[in-house]
């Protein structure tokens, strides 16, 4: 009798547990790379932005069209000269650790971001622009060193997310996220997953998901298989080669849908402007002219993108299109090399990570037609970061001439140009990996960023783009469409203009 009661209890326990598991709605998202940090201010990677988005919030946020919406601030206003910005904070917001998100906490978070002593990797654009942050009642007042037209877009970036003052003081943010977002940090197992759990004391509408599990794989075919088998509910990005598998009528389309958004990732080849012969603009232009960007889009992206000849992505206001320049002009390229005294060709070395190796191989074949031999050095992510962000002397020693990568930013011209071309952004401090240094361009970048009139700003960016195309310190190649795959039973997944995927409002499609 006693044994029967015991067995009944065990069975009932299992039944309850199964019922709870069935009710618990979770989502597994697979990305191409692991997170760099749980500290939003100490990273610059799009995949990391996606993982951190459910944990953190900024003063303002941008939606999928790039428009600015309230975040932790309910309203804001700027002074006439565009230098002083006042943000009124949302009341009764709590950090995951229970601390209140008040003006003091927000000011501390922004001050930490711009503090040079903190040495945060994502602080580059903010430092030098934000002069002071002060609290005033329920408001936070940000004073800028100079007018900046896109300040709201800047503050909507993950790097400017507000972090808990307790976690910041404790120095735990790198491994343990602590913000005000709808999900709190669960755990992070290196090489395996990051888990986010629903934050029950969230100020806004409660998400319908109980948990989000973030996984990653650098293998495009693994990502594709995960989507097809259901190991992942959402994958981002899905390689363009697999996008066609999900077109209606094909077997895989019964399992998942691939969504497409205008591309934010501009792929480029940065040229080391301190290393001969790449220190000669004619040589750099010759390399640019010998690239058939249309063929790159056709072959490497299977048509899922656009050729890029200028520094700004096509969807961004003020961007210039390629036109006929998307094709190669080998004769002109040869003429330029001859003028530069390199008609016999030369050899250069490119460092790439595995996902960008196909670009390097395509460039290798294209540059061979003008006598340039490209040696490809494929490196693991950690080694590549060291090589790409190495200072000039080290790059000269290792003869690194070309670095192939991409840059994702919102559709804001300054955020696309300044980090890659301004002299102050030169590696190792920033992403100007080829050490381009042109005081005229620097002045124009500053002037454009501070021009509040959209027409005047667009004109200035037009001039900058032409100048950069002539100098060719970086060779824009193409903009890849943001492709993400979602299982058919999931709804509410969107992507932002900077390539970040948003799953906090995702939910299971009701069964009919």
């Amino acid at each position, binding site marked *: 009798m006693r044994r029967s009661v015991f067995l009944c209890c065990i069975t009932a326990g299992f039944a309850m547990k199964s019922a709870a598991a069935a009710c618990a709605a979770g989502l597994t998202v697979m990305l191409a790379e692991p997170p760099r940090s749980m500290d939003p201010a100490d990273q610059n990677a799009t995949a990391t932005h996606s993982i951190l988005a459910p944990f953190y919030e900024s003063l303002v946020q941008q939606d999928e069209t790039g428009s600015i919406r309230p975040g932790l601030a309910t309203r804001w206003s700027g002074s006439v000269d565009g230098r002083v910005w006042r943000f009124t904070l949302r009341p009764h917001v709590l950090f995951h650790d229970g601390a209140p998100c008040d003006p003091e906490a927000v000011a501390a978070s922004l001050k930490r971001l711009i503090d040079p002593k903190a040495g945060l990797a994502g602080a580059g654009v903010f430092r030098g622009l934000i002069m002071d942050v002060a609290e005033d009642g329920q408001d936070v007042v940000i004073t800028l060193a100079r007018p900046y037209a896109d300040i709201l877009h800047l503050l909507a970036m993950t790097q400017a997310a507000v972090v808990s003052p307790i976690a910041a003081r404790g120095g735990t943010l790198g491994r343990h996220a602590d913000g005000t977002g709808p999900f709190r940090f669960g755990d992070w197992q290196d090489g395996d997953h990051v888990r986010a759990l629903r934050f029950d004391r969230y100020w806004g509408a409660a998400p319908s998901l109980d948990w989000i599990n973030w996984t990653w794989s650098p293998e495009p075919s693994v990502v*594709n298989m995960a989507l097809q088998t259901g190991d992942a509910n959402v994958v981002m990005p899905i390689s363009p080669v*697999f996008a066609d598998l999900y077109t209606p009528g094909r077997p895989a389309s019964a399992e998942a849908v691939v969504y497409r958004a205008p591309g934010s990732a501009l792929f480029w080849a940065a040229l080391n402007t301190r290393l001969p012969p790449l220190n000669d603009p004619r040589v750099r232009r010759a390399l640019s002219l010998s690239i058939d960007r249309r063929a790159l889009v*056709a072959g490497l992206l299977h048509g899922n993108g656009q050729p890029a000849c200028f520094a700004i992505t096509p969807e961004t206001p003020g961007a210039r299109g390629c036109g006929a320049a998307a094709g190669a002009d080998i004769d002109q390229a040869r003429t330029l090399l001859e003028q530069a005294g390199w008609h016999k060709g030369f050899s250069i070395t490119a460092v790439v990570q595995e996902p960008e190796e196909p670009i390097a191989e395509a460039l290798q*074949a294209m540059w061979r037609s003008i006598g340039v031999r490209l040696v490809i050095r494929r490196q693991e992510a950690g080694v590549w970061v060291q090589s790409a962000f190495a200072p000039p002397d080290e790059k000269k020693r290792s003869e690194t001439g070309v670095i192939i990568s991409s840059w994702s930013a919102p559709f804001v011209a300054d955020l696309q140009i300044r980090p890659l071309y301004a002299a102050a952004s030169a590696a190792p401090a920033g992403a100007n990996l080829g050490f381009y240094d042109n005081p005229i361009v620097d002045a124009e970048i500053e002037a454009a960023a501070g021009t509040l009139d959209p027409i005047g700003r667009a004109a200035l960016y037009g001039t900058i783009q032409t100048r950069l195309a002539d100098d060719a310190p970086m060779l824009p190649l193409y903009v890849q469409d943001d492709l993400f795959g979602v299982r058919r039973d999931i709804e509410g997944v969107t992507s932002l203009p900077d390539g970040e995927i948003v799953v906090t409002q995702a939910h299971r499609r009701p069964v009919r």
Partner: protein
Amino acid sequence: MIRIMRRHPALCLGAMLCGLALVLGAIGPVVIGGDPSAQDLYHVLQPPSWTHPCGTDAFGRDIFLRLIYGLRLTMYEVVVSTACAAGIGIPLGLFSAMAPSWLDRAIMGLSDMAFAFPGLVLALLIVSLLGPGLFHALLAIAAFSIPIYTRLARNLTHALRHATYIEALQVLGASRARILFRHMLRNIAAPVLVQITLGAGTVVLSAASLSFLGLGAQPPMPEWGTMMSDGRNVLGAAFWPCLFPGLAIALAVIGLNCLGDGLREALDARSEQS
């Protein structure tokens, strides 16, 4: 001929496959022509057809053409790596067998230590020290193959040391070098040849593995391992960039192993008697 085929089918199959590979590798690129690195980005991942018998890869390159050129690379890999390994390992083994016992033990001890490391792991270590590249990869493969030849040559020579004809040569005043290289080497040649043939299969696999990992042949070399590595990224959308290089590797290894096994059978006096 038919009798030989019946008695040694493995030898015949191996000889046939290796012979075919030799012919294709030697004259294939001359007959077919074309540039194995020439890309056509507007015609990527074309399925097998009459124009492209094995299809095209992710860069629009003809896979069949690359396989034929890759065959040459494979032959180069086998020759370089085996020559290095056997060229060092066999003389070392001969020397060890005739050396004083303490030196013999020391050489064999070192050889056992090298054996203790898994071959590919040792190769990975060496390539990561030397830097990626096909030649470095071949040196690494040779390095882990040397102890195999050393031990084989040493054991075979050791067994011959007290043979009557060797003792007779010693009594007649023949020099040690003459005994070693003129008489002993000739008598251990058959098993060494078998080992070289079997080892060649390992070289093909190891070189392909290192290239697959990005440590061997570098782009745009049409190395079979590199081709498989390129193909795996599109595996769900196109099978042929991975399938054909994989088949080529499998056929090469089967051919070399069959040849090795067949030679062993054919040269083994005991199997001949039975």
